């Protein structure tokens, strides 16, 4: 093979590989984007039906209840304006507590209950998941009468 053809072959091969890789990456990327919605948006039915997404907010005080099997847990996630019921099956993360920020990933059932496949834990007691903080902030901007207390723990 002449050096010139060889170089062209290498460049073409490289470009083809890159194109394949880019295609792969972008397809996988598109399929795995998980969007975030606030409880208000869920209540307003702005969420895609049957698709996985995330909600965030505070765990409503007094809303956590375990079912008889001891493993299924129900609680309300609120952004101070609207609350959404959430069902999760399994052990909750260490830092899950009433009145604290939470982010859950899952999908909404036809009954309007959010079936969580994952409840996210954070590593620090004062740390508020940014999505949760954001949800509360947005709700408060649209609904000024909400109290100030919830945003307190936003920053470490």
């Amino acid at each position: 093979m002449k050096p010139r053809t060889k170089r062209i072959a290498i460049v073409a091969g490289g470009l083809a590989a890159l194109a394949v890789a880019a295609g792969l990456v972008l397809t996988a990327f598109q399929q795995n984007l998980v969007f975030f919605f606030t409880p208000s948006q869920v209540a307003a039915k702005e969420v895609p039906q049957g698709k996985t997404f995330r909600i965030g907010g505070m765990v409503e005080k007094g809303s956590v209840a375990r079912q008889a099997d001891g493993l299924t847990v129900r609680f309300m996630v609120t952004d101070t304006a609207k609350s959404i019921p959430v069902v999760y099956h399994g052990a909750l993360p260490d830092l899950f507590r009433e009145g604290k920020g939470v982010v859950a990933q899952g999908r909404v059932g036809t009954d309007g209950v959010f079936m969580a496949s994952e409840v996210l834990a954070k590593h620090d007691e004062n740390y508020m998941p940014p999505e949760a903080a954001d949800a509360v902030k947005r709700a408060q901007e649209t609904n000024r009468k909400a109290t100030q207390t919830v945003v307190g723990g936003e920053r470490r």
Partner: protein
Amino acid sequence: MIPELGQFALVLALCLALVQCVLPIAGAARGNAAWMAVARPAAQGQFVFVAIAFGCLAWSFANNDFSVLNVATNSNSFLPLHYRIAATWGSHEGSMLLWVLVLTIWTVAVTVFSRHLPADVVARVLGVMGFVSVGFLAFMLFTSNPFDRLLPPAPDGHDLNPLLQDPGMVFHPPLLYMGYVGFSVAFAFAIAALLAGRLDATWARWSRPWTTVAWVFLTLGITLGSFWAYYELGWGGWWFWDPVEKASFMPWLVGTALIHSLAVTEKRGGFKAWTVLLAILAFSLSLLGTFLVRSGVLTSVHAFATDPRRGIFILAFLAVVIGGALALFAWRAQRVGTGGRFELVSRESLLLTNNVLLLAAAGSVMLGTLYPLALDALGLGKLSVGPPYFEAVFVPLLAPALFLMGVGPIARWKRAEIPELAARLRWALGVSIVAAIVVPLVMGRFSALTALGIGLAAWIIASAAITLADRVKHAGGAGIANRLRGTPRAFYGMLLAHAGIAVFVIGVTLVKTYEAEKDVRMAPGDTMELGGYVFRFDGVKDVKGPNYIAVRAAIPVMREGRTIVMLYPERRVYRVQESPMTEAAIDYGMFRHLYVALSEAVGPDAWIVRVHYKPFVGWIWGGCLLMALGGLLAATDRRYRATAREPQPSPYAAATSR
């Protein structure tokens, strides 16, 4: 008094760093030997002052000086001494100080082990490292001073995050930073080559051991972090595609590409411009990773808003270092040259393909990390990229890379023949096909991905064995023992690191396919079965630690009616922060781990217990250790020492003895 001393030492270090940056580079440009000679003493002085500053901060932590803000927020008088000292680097400010300390350690190592290098090279390398140091010291002094006072002093500290109160966390950051910052040496060599417009095989030989050692540290740091997440977070996972993990994984991928590209530059004088570009990229990603993690951008974009100075400083510094380096590259790369020619089928082209695949992998990680950030910063909504994305991308990208790992080491430089390669590797192919079919069947369930993983791992190991046999056959010397001894250490290092990848792949494949987990509600006397083991819950009892209280469950594990081990998972509540923590109990076995975590109380004496059966999970970290060991062997090869006029200890000794 002591904290002020530390602060003053930092200011002096900054002054010396400025001198170390400006004078030697100017001297190298103008051929002024006296200016160039300033580099070494300035670098060593800077190290001394940064070490003093670090010592002062550690002293404040050790002596519970809660008038220092950093100590008050990250320590507590009940915290055991070793964690108080580790808390020195447990905060943003402290970890920045550790970063600079590590940078000066590497700089001093360069001053010590560069005696055989030309003066202008040393001057430029140290100058570039001085520049990086200036940026970090200024960042600390102006935006995140670790010695800020708190008036009036706090009566007691707010305690270290309980998750960090663990031996793994004591060593993880220093190891990781040794890796991150170690790439600054390769970066400095690359910039020096661009500045001088001269790059040859000798250059590659100088920068190669440094790069390898940095890569070894990074590998160890990531491994330790992964292992820590596994046993400490209580979820039984070993890799979460967490933004922080991704930030350390990107430089690792590019660093791995750099190691391979440097091999071509040293042996064949090829890939010159490419190697320089990779060296720039590896360090740029290290910087990006440090800042993403440490500026709070990743966990919360609002950190920019709460302390705009920090964010802007970071962005500006990143722009100067990365942008400047790339601009210099664009301007001077042609002078460096691209290097020798090679055929389409040759070891060079195989290594190039491997490089492209690694870079594509790094790029896809970067996309998944930065895209959500960018979208959020632009106010276009919040989203996250799930782990399935990375898994979907990594398998097709890295499977060919794993296949080529078997072929590369046995292929000839410059020109290889496919039929010849096929003939030499046919046994490896046979072995891997058999393994791909047999292992999943023996394990109980067949799946295509499992077969692929096992097949590729067997392929790498078998072809490594063939490569070794081949090498020994053609080596000079009488007798196998002599020939084995005559084979360079770097060659063994390469094979060992590749075998490490294979072990790692086996671990990942088997644990992904055959792991099992159950969340069960258990009252005393209840039993459950998982993976052929029976777990009995014998109730809980209260225990007390130095700064926490805990409940501890007793869970005997039985197999075929006999108790094989007692597991004691705990649930701790730390006194100051009052955060509950799961302390999992693990029975470590060569071929499986049994992992039990106590979750929460449900009812008077019933608890939710999470049980994992994890086959071969230990092989994941074992493989990583083999990789690191391989890197170590390669970095201590005789030829790097032989370049010195007088016998010198290996660069590795320099990096660890401090």
